[in-house]
């Protein structure tokens, strides 16, 4: 197992390498300069040229890439053009917030989707099943920025139950309740699509399992339906669902950009959007890489969970 994990981690390297090359190429080869260089019209052409030179933007792209890679190898993602901060610090500052948001969303998605998926599967073609089906399709079809604003209007403005945004009440001491109040809406919005997808997936996975021979065996052993479904069915049915979590990560990271904007969540998603518009290359690169690492690790974890849960997989 350990050696498998090590192997997988080594396998990540070429993938991450590929991603870095690709994103670097796309960004640096595109026309236009980082906005910071264009911002201030007063800057004389010479000074501007000097700044470009200082940022090394005049070097051939492969040279820039190798330099970037060299720095990254030493843990240095460079300095943000616009924020003038070490990118690593910027990200480390905010990453926990994004991770908190994503983890809560995953959790929320799981605790909502799995029971609904299972119920839907065990009562196939019932009204409950229809309800869950339509509900989850609605979740899949809703633009989440729109949903976010609607929820703020309802829960924050109309009902006053939750704050309009942010991660905690400014100036207040840390309190779990306060944190949860801030967390619930963005986590929910971020989770909707995945929640819906996961429900559908759990349902079909459970349906598949319920038609398996070993379920018939369990029934023939005289077990009650509850035991058949939850002891014999659920574990099998959930194995593929678990892998979904790994695959959900990239979409979540993407969704976080929107949700963080709508809910003012101080995470890396919003930071990425800003960086993109300002062509803050070091930040874009770093977040892309963080996202990729997160995705790859998510996949790895999913695979490991798969292996742990499914005894048929051996290493």
């Amino acid at each position, binding site marked *: 197992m350990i050696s498998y994990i090590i192997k997988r981690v080594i396998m990540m390297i070429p993938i991450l390498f590929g991603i870095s090359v690709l994103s670097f190429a796309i960004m640096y080869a595109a026309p236009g300069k980082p906005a910071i260089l264009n911002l201030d019209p007063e800057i004389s052409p010479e000074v501007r040229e000097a700044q470009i030179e200082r940022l090394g933007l005049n070097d051939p792209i492969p040279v820039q890439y190798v330099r970037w890679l060299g720095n990254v190898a030493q843990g240095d993602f460079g300095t943000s053009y616009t924020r003038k901060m070490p990118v690593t610090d910027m990200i480390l500052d905010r990453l926990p917030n994004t991770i908190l948001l994503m983890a809560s969303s995953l959790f929320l998605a799981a605790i909502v989707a799995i029971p609904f998926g299972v119920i839907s599967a065990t009562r196939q*073609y019932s009204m409950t099943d229809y309800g869950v089906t339509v509900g989850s399709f609605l979740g899949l079809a809703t633009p989440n920025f729109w949903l976010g604003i609607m929820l703020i209007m309802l829960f924050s403005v109309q009902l006053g139950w939750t704050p309009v945004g942010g991660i905690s009440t400014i100036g207040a001491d840390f309190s779990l309740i306060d944190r949860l109040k801030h967390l619930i809406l963005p986590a929910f919005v971020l989770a909707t699509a995945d929640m819906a997808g996961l429900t559908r997936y759990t349902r079909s996975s459970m349906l598949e399992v319920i038609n398996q021979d070993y379920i018939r065996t369990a029934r023939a052993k005289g077990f009650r339906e509850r035991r058949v479904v939850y002891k014999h069915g659920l574990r099998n049915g959930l194995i593929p669902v678990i892998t979904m979590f790994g695959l959900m990560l990239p979409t979540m990271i993407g969704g976080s950009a929107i949700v963080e904007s709508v809910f003012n969540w101080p995470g890396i998603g919003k930071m990425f959007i800003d960086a993109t518009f300002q062509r803050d290359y070091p930040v874009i690169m770093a977040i892309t890489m963080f996202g990729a690492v997160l995705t790859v690790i998510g996949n790895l974890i999913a695979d490991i969970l798969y292996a742990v849960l499914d005894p*048929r997989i051996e290493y």
Partner: protein
Amino acid sequence: MTQPLLDVRNLKTYFYKKGKELPVVDDVSFQVNEGETIAIVGESGSGKSMTTLSIMQLVPSPGGKIVGGEIFFNGDDLLKHGQDRMFKVRGNDIGMIFQEPMTSLNPVLTIGDQLMETLIYHKKLSKKQAYARAKEMLELVGFSRIDEILADYPHRLSGGMRQRVMIAMAMSNDPKLLIADEPTTALDVTVQAQILDLMRGLSDKFNSSIILITHDLGVVAELADRVVVMYAGQVVEEADIVPLFDMPLHPYTVGLMESVPKLDVEQDRLTSIAGNVPTPDNFPTGCRFVTRCPLAFDRCAKEQPELVEVEPGRKVRCFLHEEGRNEE
């Protein structure tokens, strides 16, 4: 004779698909006495599995439904009681094993878990007692390295081993009746021989009754005391084993026996039954074998023959033999 252990009377299990009624088990009756092994033979789709699933009340639903008949087990009509009663019967009084040893065990639970689960559930044994009993059962079905096997997952076992585990599992609560649905079809002959030996040994040892489902007449010859031949959802012939092999009465049984290549007889050509097995949405009116029967006559296409007892312990569903008896 005392009452049979299992008495199936006029069992009807229909499927309903797109408004069509599919009589997959249609008026099936037979009995199983204590200690007796009866074989249900018939080709694919003849309703063998559905008959036994009906006995277990595990007919796939929605879609399938037991629509008529009685199933007396120990003198008690199982169909009268609800599912609640069945939870006590299944896996306890009646054990069942299936055709596919590869997929019939839960892949994520250890063999031990699965074996002990029934014991704990039905017999309320402690974990320790269950473990001891599970070991005992595995030994009985011929395993060595028992502790390892108990801790292992199904995928590590070969088909034959899994089928033995299934048998151990089905037998562990000392069921009075074991239903084996094509237990050896998926296995190699050498393994099949082991399993058949095992089943014979067990039935002798515990004096339990067995319903053996198969389409392999060789297996029947090896193991059964009595045979029920099914065709298109109906019993077409029922007889003790030797008379049946000596002189099959129903044209279908005759055809079935003759179409199997035999090891000890040299045949240039096999006799075969023309045509195909009809599907339930397409059963002929009249005798269901009429489309393939070499001896069919007018009446066969119009009327359904009854299953009649032509000799004690011997029943046939065919006008030829109804008439034959009448003439006598």
